[in-house]
């Protein structure tokens, strides 16, 4: 696996795909949150890889990556608080119990 842009892109796409399927298929809410985090990490890898290999001056990519990391953390906090609220009101954090609102 040569140390060049393509490898990193492949890794990030794989990670992104894993995260996406995590969100779509896992039953457990927290697992879905983890899936979203994985997708964001894939983006971070992407940014850093582009900054290293192809961007004229790498700092924008790395700054962008830092921002994404910060926001991912905020997202996790908000997500978990909402999952907590769901648990309090429904008593379970499985996606199958979240089907009342329809029509």
């Amino acid at each position, binding site marked *: 696996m040569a140390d060049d842009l393509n490898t990193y892109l492949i890794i990030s796409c794989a990670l992104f795909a894993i995260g*996406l399927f995590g*969100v*779509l*298929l896992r039953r457990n809410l927290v697992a879905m949150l983890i899936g979203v985090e994985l997708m964001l990490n894939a983006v971070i890898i992407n940014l850093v890889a582009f900054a290293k290999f192809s961007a004229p001056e790498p700092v924008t990519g790395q700054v962008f990556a830092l921002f994404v990391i910060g926001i991912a953390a905020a997202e996790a906090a908000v997500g978990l608080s909402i999952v907590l609220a769901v648990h309090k009101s429904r008593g379970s954090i499985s*996606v199958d119990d*979240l*089907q*009342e*609102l*329809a*029509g």
Partner: protein
Amino acid sequence: MTLNAWADIAIGAPLAVFFAMLLGMRAWPRAVVGLSLLSALAVALATWMMALNLPEGGFTSSVPWAVTDDFSVSFGYRLTGLSTAMACVVGTIHLLVQVYSVGYMADDPHKARFFGTLSLFATAMLGIVLSADLAQTFIAWELVGLASYLLIGFWNAKPAAAQAAKKAFIMTRFGDLGLFAGLALMVSRLGDLKIDTVLLAVEANTWEPGFVTAIGLCLLCGIAGKSAQFPLHTWLPDAMEGPTPVSSLLHSATMVAAGVYLFALLQPLFLASEFTATFALGLAVFTALLAATVACVETDMKRVLAWSSISQLSFMLMGLAAGSQVAGFFHLVTHAGFKCLLFLSAGLFIHAAHTGDLLAIGRKVGRSAPVAALGLVVGCVALSGFPGFAGFMSKELVLHAVHEQGMVFYSGALLTSALTAYYAFRLVFLALFDPERESVEAHPSAALKWQQGVVVILAVLTLGIGWTGGDLARHLGASADEAHIHWMSSGVAFAMVALVLGAGLAFVDFGRGGERAGSFAKFPAMHRFFASGWGVDAFWRTFSDVGIAGLTRLALLIDRGAIDRTVDGTGAATKVLGGVAARMQNGRVQLYLSIALGLLATGLLALGAM
């Protein structure tokens, strides 16, 4: 007073009375009646003045009424011998009938409405007669139809009268379709419908024969509607539901004669195509025969006179179709006289006997009403064509004219005049010489004087009219000898034979007492066939029940079934679609995301393909 002024009075005065009636009907009924009589007098005077000082080449003046590029209509007057003569007939008869109606309608609460509508009729009739533009004739033609609808349905509380009025209007409307189609076809060739332009175009015969025949037949259809010719004649006997003055003025003397007048006016057009002329002649003969046979078996007095009017109208058309304007028109004038007399005297009889049935009148009244009896006798004698009387003088000219058109028509005409004599005298014998007459004495009311006065005047007029043939011909611009009776010719002889045969048979059947059933009763099948008016009325009833009602049901079916259902269907379908769309939102968040990302993927692929 210029001719134009007289014409304005003739048409304007009655119209003013009609509007006065519309506005002030309830407040002062007597005033409306007075006004109406006054206007009738003015109209009669105006028509006679126009006829007397008519300049040599006639007088036309018109003002544009509705102008468009393709075609324009003008309102005006065209005074010729023919139109002024007809106007005089209308004016005089209208005056007499109005005077008669004063007595007839004495105790009717809606008197004002009657006189007002009668004046409307006068305006419309004179509108037809004096018009210079066929479009104006058509307009007046429709107005006359409206007036007849209102007058027949005057006692609209009686369902029969309302039904008769509707039938009359719709049947004449069928005829008007043909008239309108004819006019519309003419307009597509000429810019406007002025009578002079039409006649010039006919003389120049620039149109191809097929076109002229088509126009002739269309106009004939209109005439058949208005002048109650076969097959559009069944409304006239039903129109007897109206008051008797209406029957006498409209449905014998003037309105039904409008069709004949139009034929006389546009005679060159009809005669220009050989086919139309023979067709018209054949139609007239056939209708005359049909009407005469039905009149022979009819039991109601007014209906007998109605069928007789149809038959006499066909005689006029025969004269005109055979080519002689004088014969046809002279018969129109004399017929107007004696038929109006017959109807008015019938009115007296019906007032006295409170029923229209001949046998009942014979039993109840008979000769106890002297003036009515006098009117009936003079009328019937004139009607039957007794030599020297009005009927004979004009019918003789007609028979003479038809004689040249071939034996078939002539023999038909002769047979009809024989039948005419038969039913005329049948009427007299049944009404006046009924053996078991209980003598109930008539109580002459004050109003009766008006009616009897008019009947006497008319009787005198009927006697005199016969001899005015010569100066009428001169007035029409034809030579006097056109109206000369060839006393010694074979035609007169045949007519005499027909008269004697008819009168004799009538005397044999009804004159001598006995069961007075009439010779027709001997053949029950034929009797029933004649009584039903040769089944024409039944045909029209089935046509309206099956044809029109069927079409209506079909239309309703299409409307409710097809169109409405599709419209409501689309509405309901969209709601069902709505339900489907809403169910897509079934609550599972992972399904939402998969749909979203799936569509996104297809979008990306599409981008790739583009």
